[in-house]
């Protein structure tokens, strides 16, 4: 199987971009990535798009062809694929695009992720997000997305003594990082008190424990490693990828405080990359809620099970701490345009490994990881990236 590298990255700002359409955002991210990669449109073999729910958010399906069309690629008649996998769709698109190059079918593939979430009201947006949970066995009984994560948080507090302050420290850290990211939705530091005093969304998760609704898009240009050197001196190799699924409904899972999909996806990615969690200096993990980042760093074995909260509070995961987690600000501060999430995480890791992350640069980063969840953890995707030698 062939090796695959990222040779171009692009991203829009994230936020409530009321004057920008889904198309505008997709084009901007795509063109930035193509320019960054220095490829021509005739070099491109295929387009993979991660998008969770354009059908519900903007009444537009068939966004795969739409994105290629508006990127000026319609007359190339490229194969275009739209991937849906809840919040993990962007990360799955990346994985599928990588497979297409590994197999030898394609040489250069564009991976895009986009979501336009603010064209509907807040309540409707929350309902759409909740549709990645089990509609028949969770939502119909009144469980909201935040409520399901709140149950995981409660159990984690019960089992391991995790506190609200531990969880709040995730939000404080990610906002601190977001303040250094000019593309982040929230470029403002917050205090522990702000998080602790925010109104409940689903106890014990307050407003500031939750990632926002966002508009935004991100894109990558992938290339076979053998051709990558034609375009760049600094290809970032995708060293390993793992995807796993789990029971759709939270109540069917083995353990409320461990996401088995994350554990398995992580193991698969590390096995392929032939490295260990300790070899990673920078990670972008799924933090749609503060508890989710705590679960992620435990389930990816960056910290011991149950110690995610204290580790965060003690600064292990701060920028240039033991392992820098969510230097971009994460979903919490950078923003969460669902379909773009997995792709934006990869954009951040590539920038970190290239040494192009500006004020939030992780010093000496050579290996980075992305971790993306679909729903309440029924899908998890982990990618490992390495700076080319």
């Amino acid at each position, binding site marked *: 199987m062939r090796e695959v590298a990222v040779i171009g990255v692009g991203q829009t700002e994230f936020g*409530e971009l*009321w*004057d920008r359409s889904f198309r505008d955002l997709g084009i901007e991210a795509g063109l930035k990535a193509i320019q960054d990669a220095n490829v021509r449109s005739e070099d491109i073999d295929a387009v993979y798009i991660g998008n969770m729910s354009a059908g519900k958010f903007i009444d537009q399906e068939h966004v795969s062809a739409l994105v290629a069309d508006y990127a000026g690629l319609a007359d190339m008649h490229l194969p275009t694929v739209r991937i849906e996998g809840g919040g993990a769709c962007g990360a799955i698109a990346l994985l599928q695009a990588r497979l297409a190059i590994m197999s030898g079918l394609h040489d250069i593939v564009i991976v895009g992720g986009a979501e336009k979430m*603010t064209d509907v*009201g*807040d309540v409707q947006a929350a309902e759409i997000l909740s549709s990645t949970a089990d509609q028949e066995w969770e939502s119909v009984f009144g469980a909201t997305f935040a409520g399901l994560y709140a149950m995981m948080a409660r159990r984690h507090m019960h089992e391991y003594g995790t506190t609200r302050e531990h969880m709040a420290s995730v939000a404080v850290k990610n906002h601190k990082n977001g303040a250094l990211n000019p593309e982040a939705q929230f470029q403002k530091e917050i205090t522990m008190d702000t998080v602790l005093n925010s*109104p409940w969304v689903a106890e014990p998760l307050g407003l500031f424990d939750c990632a926002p609704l966002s508009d935004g898009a991100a894109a990558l240009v992938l290339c076979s490693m053998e051709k990558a050197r034609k375009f760049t001196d600094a290809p970032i190799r995708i060293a390993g990828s793992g995807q796993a699924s789990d029971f759709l409904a939270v109540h069917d899972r083995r353990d409320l405080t461990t996401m088995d999909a994350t554990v398995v996806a992580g193991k698969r990615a590390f096995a392929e990359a032939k490295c260990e969690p300790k070899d990673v200096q920078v990670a972008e993990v799924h933090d749609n809620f503060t508890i989710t980042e705590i679960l992620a760093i435990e389930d990816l074995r960056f910290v011991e099970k149950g110690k995610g909260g204290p580790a965060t509070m003690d600064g292990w995961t701060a920028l240039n701490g033991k392992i820098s987690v969510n230097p971009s600000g994460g979903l919490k501060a950078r923003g969460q345009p669902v379909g773009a999430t997995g792709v934006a995480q990869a954009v951040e890791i590539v920038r970190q490994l290239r040494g192009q992350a500006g004020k939030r640069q992780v010093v000496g980063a050579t290996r980075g990881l992305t971790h993306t969840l679909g729903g309440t953890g029924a899908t998890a995707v982990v990618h490992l990236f390495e700076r080319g030698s």
Partner: protein
Amino acid sequence: MKTGIVSYGGYVPRYRIRPKDIGAVWGSDGEAMGRALNIRAKSVPGPDEDVITISVEAARACMAKVDLEPTEIGAIYVGSESHPYAVKPTATIVAEAIGAAPVLTAADFEFACKAGTAAMQAAMGLTLSKMMKYGLAIGSDTSQGAPGDALEYSASAGGAAFLIGTDKPIAEIDHTVSYTTDTPDFWRREGQRYPSHGGRFTGEPAYFKHVISCANLLFKRAGTTAADYDYAVFHQPNGKFPVRVAKQLGFKDGQIDAGMCVRDIGNTYSGAIMVGLCAILDEAETGDRIFAVGYGSGAGSDAFDITVTNEIARINRKATPSMKEMIADHVFIDYSTYAKYRGKILMREA
């Protein structure tokens, strides 16, 4: 020749409800909501009050300050988004009530919260063109906020009337300018009891964009800056937006305090900026300059550059209670009384 405000009158119902009492019913922290909105209480119309009675009260307060024949009024326009009738004008009832009928034209206006200022502009044109001597422009609402919705903390009742004309205005309107786009931030369809709104979309791309753009157009047209005015008043959907917009435009707290009625009575919608303007005229003196920018969802802003003349001393401002006195004269009610007064309790059918 300039047209302007010949007289004015405002009316706010006596009843008030506090945010804390609304929040208590819905399991929300009403006090925090009140703090966030910068609203201490909102006015509630009594069981026998509606946009017609409020408009009549405001019109009577307006006419009481001057010695003019109501029959000299050539037009009555009532701006509101809560006219009691879908078909059947409010304005005709006002005309009869103040003795202005039958030789006049009358109509009801609707443009969310700025229908009243639109009526002022129409009356300005009709009087400047000499089609009539006076036009009466009224903005009045008993606004609807769905139970449990964020709007319920602010949607209140009140109104104001401005007699517009070129004959001895107490305040000349030197310039007016409007800024209008199709921006669906807030709406209520035919037959719907409560409005829908776009949440945070009602802020930046709606209120702030229109108010600031319109204000800057007026500055340009008048050749002025914030420092040239003694008073400024803005549409006040809550106590936060007008403060922020004033600051952005360069106004100081001292310039906006007099017209900031929202903190004590909530958002009176079509009445909001006009009630604020009444409160300013209650205390303004000859030569004072007033900067006023309204806002209506959907969306648009009307801005007015106003200069108070020496006629202000010749009308009887004391003929009716001042806005300050009217706002201070209140009775707090609890949520159940509020629910009864607002017709939210299902009664047995007759």
